[in-house]
């Protein structure tokens, strides 16, 4: 890779050992992908909490902070594994919670803004067209690339932290025009009506084209999708397909036409999504013991408008005895939801609202599952239906109103 004078100085350690090691890590990743140079970034979003990092990651952060590491560009944090108000009620480990508090302290010492949200693009920072970023959480990256026309690769925790310290990333993948062009076409013959249906469509597209460099181009979408619909579509594409970008003709900024989205190239394939295809996704889930005592609205965190929808659906109802319903959202959204009365409606119905977390990364989730007798997790998020599986859940995707119905009646449909 070609390095400029500033980068060569970093490698000589002139900006300290943490920066030198950060650039070395980025250099190896850049070499792996044949990057030619580094490019500056203006915003970093990183995932860092004790559940994903473990003790070794905490030690790493501690060493960085104690060595005087500071972030050069604004850095926000992704959802974490504790809502400290719920540690006891969820049966989480107090020792791990203490580590999480230390971890947050180290991050703040390094100038990190601990926002604890995976919907930074709906709550904190909206990048402009062409802006270069180093974002973590796959859902945030696919949003930035697809909906904003900004440029980011998946930057996992250590890589995002490195970008925050050096202020740059190796230029490969979605920083480069050729990788941003659509690679295959998805003709949408159905009209997805619920977040779960957008997610189901993404599951079909992602599972059948698993590749970071696969870029679907959706055509035929009959009405302008909402931000939350695109959120669920993107999060699920990233989860099932490991994808970082999609185009939607007439909707996303790099797809005014199909031809533009493909960059003049021929698509490597075409697929169709029909109503029957979407129905088959929902019919494909099994419920071996017919239990339905864990219903989740999370992964991604809920926007204010999703909170309002849930408040309307739960209004005047009660969660079935023995059933747990979790909703996760960001601090700012929850604050607004309280001011508007949405949170009170949900809590009156018996819904647990967790702040700053995502259910699938909750500390102690495997034991929490066993202790509560949760065999199935039911959600309207196709992403979390996929991501939570290492905790041995059987997972079932259902539409939003169906999830609420199951939660309030205790009857699985």
């Amino acid at each position, binding site marked *: 890779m070609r390095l400029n004078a500033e980068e060569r100085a970093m490698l000589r350690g002139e900006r300290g050992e943490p920066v030198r090691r950060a650039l070395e*890590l980025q250099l*190896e*990743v850049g070499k792996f992908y044949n990057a030619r140079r580094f490019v500056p970034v203006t915003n970093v979003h990183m*995932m860092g909490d004790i559940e994903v990092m*473990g003790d070794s*990651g905490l030690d790493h952060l501690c060493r960085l902070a104690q060595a005087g590491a500071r972030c050069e560009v604004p850095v926000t944090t992704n959802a974490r594994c504790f809502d400290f108000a719920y540690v006891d009620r969820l049966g989480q480990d107090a020792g791990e919670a203490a580590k999480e508090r230390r971890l947050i302290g180290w991050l703040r010492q390094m100038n990190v803004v601990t926002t604890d949200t995976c919907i930074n693009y709906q709550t904190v920072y909206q990048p402009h067209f062409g802006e270069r970023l180093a974002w973590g959480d*796959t859902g945030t990256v696919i949003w930035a690339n697809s909906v904003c026309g900004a440029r980011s690769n998946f930057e*996992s925790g250590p890589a995002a932290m490195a970008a925050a310290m050096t202020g740059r990333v190796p230029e490969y993948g979605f920083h480069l025009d050729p990788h941003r062009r659509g690679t295959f076409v998805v003709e949408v013959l159905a009209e997805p009506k619920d977040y779960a249906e957008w997610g189901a469509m993404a599951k079909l597209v992602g599972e059948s084209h698993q590749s970071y460099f696969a870029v679907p181009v959706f055509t035929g979408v009959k009405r302008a999708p909402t931000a939350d619909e695109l959120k669920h579509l993107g999060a699920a594409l990233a989860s099932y397909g490991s994808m970082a970008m999609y185009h939607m003709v007439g909707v996303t900024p790099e797809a005014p036409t199909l031809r533009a989205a493909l960059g003049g190239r021929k698509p490597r394939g075409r697929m169709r999504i029909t109503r029957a295809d979407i129905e088959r996704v929902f019919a494909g889930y099994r419920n071996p013991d017919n239990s339905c005592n864990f219903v989740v609205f999370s992964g991604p965190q809920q926007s204010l408008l999703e909170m309002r929808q849930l408040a309307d659906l739960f209004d005047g109802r009660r969660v079935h005895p023995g059933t747990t319903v979790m909703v996760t959202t960001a601090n700012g959204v929850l604050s607004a939801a309280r001011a508007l009365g949405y949170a009170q409606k949900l809590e009156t119905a018996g819904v647990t609202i967790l702040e700053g977390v995502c259910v699938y990364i909750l500390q102690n989730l495997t034991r929490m599952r066993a202790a509560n007798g949760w065999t199935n997790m039911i959600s309207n998020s196709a992403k979390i239906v996929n991501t939570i*599986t*290492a905790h041995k859940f059987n997972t079932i995707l259902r539409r939003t109103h169906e999830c609420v119905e199951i939660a309030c009646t205790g009857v699985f449909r």
Partner: protein
Amino acid sequence: MRRDRVHRRIPVSGASVTIRVNRAFGPVVEGEAVVSGEGFSPRYDLDRWSGVITKRGHPLEGVNIRDKVLFFPTAKGGIAAGWAFFDIKAKGLAPRALVFGVTNPVMVQGAVFANLTITEGWSRAPRECIRSGDIVRVDPAAKTIRLLKRGG
């Protein structure tokens, strides 16, 4: 039938089996191969406290990845995997190498951070020439994977 055909293509001695990879990072390692037909995420599929693949229905469900050379066609998800390799290495549960048909930057960043050998792309499908239990050598500088010994 199809499986029989695949097995017939695997040479008995294996002495000449070499796979070339497109990209690679890390030290030269040798270890027991585990060959999967399904992709992998250390977050979705793995219990990071035991090193055992726990995702229900994964072809490798119940397999411990410690010290293995893992062959996966694809990487799945997920940013959280970036810390995971460093974490499982610190716990003594890390594989020797990760060999992907197609991977994503998270796996690469995580492997580089943990100084774990990782490769992407292959000149021939491992399922056609390497079996789980075989001993293989991964040489990132030479961009090769060589079969050293057939498993039992």
